[in-house]
Every structure is written in structure tokens, then in C-alpha cells.
């Protein structure tokens, strides 16, 4: 008999890094779940898969894809979708999420989350890709809002409206990255609170928090860069509180992918996220 699909608890989770394997098993603290990048677990076997199998016995797992290119102009890569299905089938994770972005074009994978204009035409295409993913995996997926550094002159609607319409058309859920909201709002000179106000919070199945770098564009305007390589800054924690007050508790992830610190630093961020959830 199969167990019912697990779901992510409304607690603090962390992006799993192999160097923290023992720390997580020995002293998880308030850690409630783990997120992995799907593409790192698409080998045939060996240590990565063995560690994942073991961790999945202890923690709910969220599978976060970074390579599906859902916002791509071309068809989804069927081989890649099949690899993803294989992973999701054997792991039966609590959640699967991907990005409102593209990364593959002309069979070149660019290893970055690239932006798309928000138009009727792109809406139709992205909705079709989400439906194809959900049909293939046999489950709902969450779609994450991107970090924006620039805008498309051709865009016809704003991002929260674009995402809400995708939810309506496909039944997908949303992954709300609060750091991305802050980064995009700073870069595009809009209000992060207004973005949250307009966001379909009922559809949110997971919240991300991460760090960013600060730079300037050629006009001297602030240019924040989503680096996943630093601690979450206070204005982003404040924006999280603003969000949680409206949404109630949600599964909350600390993302730290570059210049990964020792476990104690992440444990502090997890504790702070846990405290924010307790107040929600």
C-alpha cells in the first residue's frame, strides 16, 4: 500500500548542501524540511542519491527545479522532463517547484534564470508548459517569481497579475520568493508591499528567503543582484513579516547556494525564520 503524498509543513526549511549532511542529521534544531535542486540528483546512483534517500526518511523534501525552462519560447525538453518524472516518481517529494524564467534556447542551456516579457502571448505559452509538467508528473507544481534586473518595453501586465492568471488557467500553486520581490522592486523602482498586496497569497505553497549583493547601474541607480550568497537582510525579514501577517504561516525556506557558510550560520537563519513563523 502506498502512503499518501506528504506535504511541506509550515515551518522553516533549508536548501540542502552535501557539506551539511552530518550537521543536519545530528542537530537539525527547528529545521522542518529540506529543499534540493532537482538537477543535482539526476545521476544514476552514488553518494548524492544515497544521501537523498536517507534524508527523505527523516525530512519532508521539496524538489526545486532549475533547468526546465518553463518560460522558454521553444518546447520543453522531453528528455529533461522524463528525468524529472523519474526523480519525482521514486522520491515522492512533498512539493515540486520551478521558475517563471527560461534557461534553454536553441538546445543551449545557459545555467541562469532569464526573464520574459509579460504578454498574452507569453502567458499562453507558459500556461501550456505548466500544464504539460503537471500532466507528466501527475501533481500540482509551484511557480516561483523571478528576480528582475530590467523590464521589457513590450510587457502588457505586471508580474503578480501574470502569475495570478497562470494559477487560474493551470491550477498551479506559487512559490513566493520575498528576497526576489525586494530585489525586483528596488531594481524596477516599484513598491515591494504593493507587490505582496497584489500577489495571489492563497496560491502560495512555499516562501523563499535569501541574500543578495548590492551594485549600481550606469546611471547610479541601485542594482541588487540575487546572489544566494549572503545572509537575509533586515528589510527582507520585514517584508517577510508583512507577508506572513497577510498569508498566515507557510513553509519557509532559507536559500544559500554560493559561498555556503558553516552550518551554525544557517542554523541562526533557520531559528530566525522559525521565530517569524511563530508570530504569523
Amino acid at each position, binding site marked *: 500500500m502506498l502512503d499518501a503524498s506528504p506535504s511541506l509543513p509550515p515551518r522553516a526549511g533549508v536548501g540542502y548542501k552535501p557539506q551539511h549532511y552530518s550537521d543536519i542529521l545530528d542537530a537539525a534544531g527547528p529545521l522542518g524540511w529540506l529543499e534540493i535542486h532537482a*538537477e*543535482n540528483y*539526476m*545521476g*544514476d*546512483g*552514488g*553518494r*548524492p*542519491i*544515497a544521501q537523498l534517500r536517507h534524508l527523505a526518511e527523516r525530512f519532508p523534501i521539496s524538489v526545486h527545479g*532549475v*533547468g*526546465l*525552462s518553463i518560460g*522558454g*519560447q*521553444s518546447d520543453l*525538453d522531453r*528528455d*529533461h522532463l522524463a*528525468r524529472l518524472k523519474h526523480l519525482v516518481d521514486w522520491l515522492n517529494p512533498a512539493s515540486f517547484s520551478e521558475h517563471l524564467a*527560461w*534557461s*534553454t*534556447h*536553441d*538546445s*543551449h*542551456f*545557459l*545555467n*541562469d534564470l*532569464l*526573464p*520574459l*516579457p509579460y504578454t498574452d502571448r507569453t502567458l499562453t505559452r507558459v500556461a501550456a508548459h505548466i500544464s504539460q509538467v503537471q500532466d507528466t508528473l501527475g501533481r500540482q507544481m509551484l511557480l516561483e517569481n523571478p528576480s528582475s*534586473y*530590467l*523590464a*521589457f*518595453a*513590450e510587457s502588457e501586465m505586471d508580474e503578480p497579475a501574470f502569475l495570478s492568471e497562470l494559477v487560474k488557467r493551470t491550477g498551479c500553486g506559487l512559490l513566493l520568493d520575498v528576497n526576489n520581490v525586494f530585489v525586483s522592486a528596488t*531594481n*524596477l*523602482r*516599484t513598491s515591494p508591499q504593493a507587490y505582496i498586496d497584489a500577489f495571489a497569497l492563497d496560491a502560495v505553497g512555499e516562501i523563499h528567503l535569501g541574500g543578495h549583493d548590492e551594485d549600481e*547601474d*550606469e*546611471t547610479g*541607480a541601485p*542594482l541588487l*543582484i540575487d546572489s544566494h550568497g549572503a545572509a537575509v537582510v533586515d528589510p527582507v525579514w520585514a517584508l517577510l513579516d508583512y507577508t506572513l501577517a497577510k498569508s498566515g504561516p507557510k513553509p519557509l525556506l532559507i536559500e544559500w547556494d554560493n559561498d555556503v557558510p558553516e552550518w551554525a550560520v544557517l542554523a541562526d537563519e533557520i531559528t530566525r525564520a522559525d521565530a517569524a513563523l511563530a508570530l504569523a
Partner: protein
Amino acid sequence: MKVTQSQFQAGLLDPDTPAPKGLVNPDGAQASKRYDVYRNNVAVSLADALESAFPVIRKLVGAEFFRAMAGVYLRKHPPQTPLMMFYGDRMPVFLKRFEPARSLPYLPDIARLELAMRRAYHAADASPISGEDLSAIPPDALMGARFSLAPAVQVLTSDHPIHGIYAANTQPDAPKPVSGPQSVLITRPVYDPVPHLITEQTAVFLNGLRDAQTLGVAMSLAGTGLDLGRVLGLLLSQNAITELKGPSS
């Protein structure tokens, strides 16, 4: 002004191509440095992936040379799939033709070795046979038996001392490599791949087994002087044999 993904992509790997028109900053002016963020993300993330794939090559040529070389490689061979764990598989051929690295003729074979180690790390798990399983084959049937090797097992031959160079750059107490050809067997007893120095004869023998030849045929391919007991002992101790089929099976 529409920006297609072809137009967006064109400049990502070409610093001389200006940002596409139609990408704007909050004032509606043409984005330039803002587009460079994507250019930078792509180049840096791919160069980082190559660095983690080829730590020994990087040590041999130096960090600065490697970064510059990675910049050339990633523009010539962008990834074809999102599996970054296997990015860099054309590095051996690239290095063969990369003029600034001509003075280090062993680099392409070191790249082959690093790729093989990584493939071994991610290879499928296997259930090894034991020495008892091997002894259960009657001696007169042994020469007609066929062996299946674990998916992680790989054999490389080179005109250069690749095992010595690899060891000297990964282990603190390894001896200085001596010039001359070397062959390497890679095994993965559990999770960590191990490179073993083997004779060229052993390499021929193992390739015979891999091609599903019988033990007898693989031995005759290798010629006289093969220390069969030693090779089989190594394979058994490294969990490298997964199946033994007698002549009748």
C-alpha cells in the same frame, strides 16, 4: 519593440554584442549594465562549473589561466543539457586544439581522467559478487566464464603518466610523476571513486571483459605475463565485479 529569446541569448555569450533594444530600466531607457548582470551570471556560473569539474587541470595550469581558458570553452561549447554535473565532456578535444596549452601535451588525458572519475561518482550502484561466488565456478569452467563489471568501473590508457600526475596533484605525499605511458583502472568500492595504476596488459584484459569476452579470450588478448590472480583480487576487493556467468548460462 519585441525582444525574442534568440536576441536575448545572442549577447549572453558575446560581450561585444550590445544589449537588445526593448530591454529597459525604470525610466524606460535602454538597459545596458542591467543586461550585463545576465551576461555575467551565465559566464561565471559556467566557469564555476568547469572549475569544480577539473580541479587537477586547474592546478596544473594555474587559476588565472584556467579561468581564461574556461571563458573560451564555455563560449565554444555551452552546455547541451541542464545536467551541470556532466558539463565539460568536450574538454579533452578542446584542450588538444587549444594553442596556449600546447606545451602541456598530457592535459587532454588528465581531462579524460577527471571526467571518468566524475562519471564513476554518479554511476549506478551495483551489487558486487564475492570471492566465494568466484570460487564456486569449477576451475575447468572458469576460462569460459563472462564477467560483468560495475557501472562505475572505467579503464583509461595514455601515452603520459596520467596516474602519477593525478596523484601528485590530489595527494600530499605522492611521488613526482615519471614520464612514460600509464593505464588507469577506476573503481568505486562504495561512494568514492579510486584510480588504480595498472599495466597496459591489464587494461587490454579489462577492456576484453567489458566487451563481454570470456575470461579465456580476454586473457589471450592481453598476452602472456598477465597476473590474473592479482587483477581478479583487485576487482573483488574493489566491489568491481557484479555478475559471473558460467559457460553454460
